């Protein structure tokens, strides 16, 4: 009589494919996973408590560390939330520059997703190609902001510096260089038979589950639900640009599977490059910073603002009691809910599928742990 036993495997905080310090406790029978218990909190830095001791402008560098692959987006969400609370109107040029920086950072973040999903499934080469493009973006952003990863560029009321000389031409050159590369990536990895079989049809997330579990961003759009905060509830002059919102189509097998999520981000990179080109060509002249007092005293009130980050809807709930420091800052991280839905999606998969699905969700731990 053969007795098989369940194994409790710890895919621990240190593992080559959990993107960051995520601990997954798997209950498996050999290769077949019955149950997953995600444990987060290894990167908790108590940012919300720190915010209560810093003034409003002093908190901006900390928002960089929230989602370090899309740092400008996080800067932007916080600053715009404070601007909505204070009723500040940001000048048009600053809005356009913010859009350009945010979209460049979105491309950089999606490139990492492309590279690491390739690495997780065993193709080591696309990661280096993604890093090559990302180096060029980092060079552009370094010229603009002075830093390569934690940019600290957006200020409450505008941006920190204006565009340097010749930056516009370099950025346009990069966009023209980057567009054919997406086709190259599709040839190399996306439509490779082995890759499509690895990601197609696994990790299906239905639309009802996604909304119920609070999943937002590309993961929600991959289930077929067309919702993009940049189009549906536009902010910071996104409504002046003409771009499409790609939705999952089920070309890998099933609608809402891992291949849909992966392919959606490749298409989003294409759309982001369109937005950047339009913004650069129609950049207005003007101020880059609104008239904001030196010592920022925010009137009493509260606000919530959520923006479309590369990973989903990242939002800030800020409650102010009239002083220079906020009374309560709550950060709604997109990856928090994205990790939560793993409990539902990762039931009954093989361990290899688990790694591929985890890569396709594109989670990042600092955002969920704060």
């Amino acid at each position, binding site marked *: 009589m053969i007795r098989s036993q369940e194994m409790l495997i710890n895919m621990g905080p240190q593992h080559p494919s959990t993107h960051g310090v995520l601990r997954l406790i798997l209950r498996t029978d050999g290769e077949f996973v019955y149950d997953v218990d995600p444990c*987060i*909190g290894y990167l*908790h830095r*108590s940012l*919300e*408590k720190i915010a209560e001791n810093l003034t409003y402008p002093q908190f901006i560098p900390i928002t960089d560390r929230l989602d370090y692959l899309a740092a400008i987006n996080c800067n932007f969400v916080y600053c715009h939330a404070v601007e*909505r609370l204070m009723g500040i109107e940001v000048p048009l040029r600053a809005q356009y520059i913010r859009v350009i920086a945010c979209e460049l950072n979105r491309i950089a973040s999606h490139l990492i997703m492309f590279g690491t999903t390739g690495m997780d499934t065993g193709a080591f080469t696309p990661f280096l190609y993604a890093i090559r493009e990302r180096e060029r973006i980092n060079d552009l952003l370094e010229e603009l902001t002075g830093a390569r990863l934690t940019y600290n560029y957006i200020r409450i009321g505008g941006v920190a510096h204006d565009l340097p000389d010749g930056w516009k031409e370099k950025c346009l050159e990069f966009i023209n260089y980057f567009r054919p590369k997406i086709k190259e990536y599709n040839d190399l990895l996306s439509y490779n038979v082995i890759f499509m079989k690895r990601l197609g049809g696994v990790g299906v997330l239905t639309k009802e*589950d996604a*909304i*119920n*579990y*609070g999943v937002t961003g590309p993961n929600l759009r991959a289930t077929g*639900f067309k*919702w993009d905060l940049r189009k*549906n*509830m536009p902010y910071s002059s996104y409504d002046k640009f003409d771009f499409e919102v790609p939705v999952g189509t089920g070309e890998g097998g099933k609608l809402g599977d891992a291949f849909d999520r992966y392919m959606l981000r490749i298409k989003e990179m294409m759309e982001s490059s369109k937005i950047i080109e339009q913004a650069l060509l129609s950049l207005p002249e003007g101020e880059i910073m609104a008239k904001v007092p030196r010592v920022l005293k925010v009137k009493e*009130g*509260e*606000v*919530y603002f*959520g923006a479309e980050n590369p990973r989903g*809807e990242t*939002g800030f*709930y800020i*409650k102010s009691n009239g002083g220079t420091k906020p*009374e*309560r800052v*709550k950060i*709604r991280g997109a990856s*928090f*809910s994205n990790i*939560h839905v793993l409990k*539902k999606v990762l039931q009954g998969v093989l361990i290899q599928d688990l790694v591929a699905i985890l890569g396709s969700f594109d989670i990042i731990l600092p955002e969920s*742990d*704060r």
Partner: protein
Amino acid sequence: MSGEEIHRILKEKFGEKIGELKDGAQPSIEIDKEIIRELAKFLKEDSRFLFDHLVYITATDERTKIKVIWCLFSYTCKHYLVLKADLDRSNPEVDSISDIFATAEWHERETYDFFGINFKGHPDLRRILLPDDWEGYPLRKDYTPPEFYHGIDNRYKR
């Protein structure tokens, strides 16, 4: 739908359990903590509201009481609604809505972790971001960090 209309409809249905409205981009309504489950179900299923997205659950510490905040959003009608309930500071307790909105499970764990609010009926209420053996509830205003943690000296040195 504007904040006043929502407030009017809810006041008709739930009577004096619904408190006052503070209007704005996100209209916020003070409620009595007992009706949260009924209210959440009603808001999710009623065809005028269709609040299907629970954005966050959090709490703030106002010296004399703790206030729990739920923020709801509707994808179809594109309106926000913020619900607030006051809780007793010495024994903060409120019903859990994790079977109505699945995402509430982790948000409630986080609120328990930081404020010590007991969500009744929650399937698995334990600390999520802080270590399991941490003492105290950090985001309360009267919180002092522990002096020693597993032998690590945590006293503030000048």
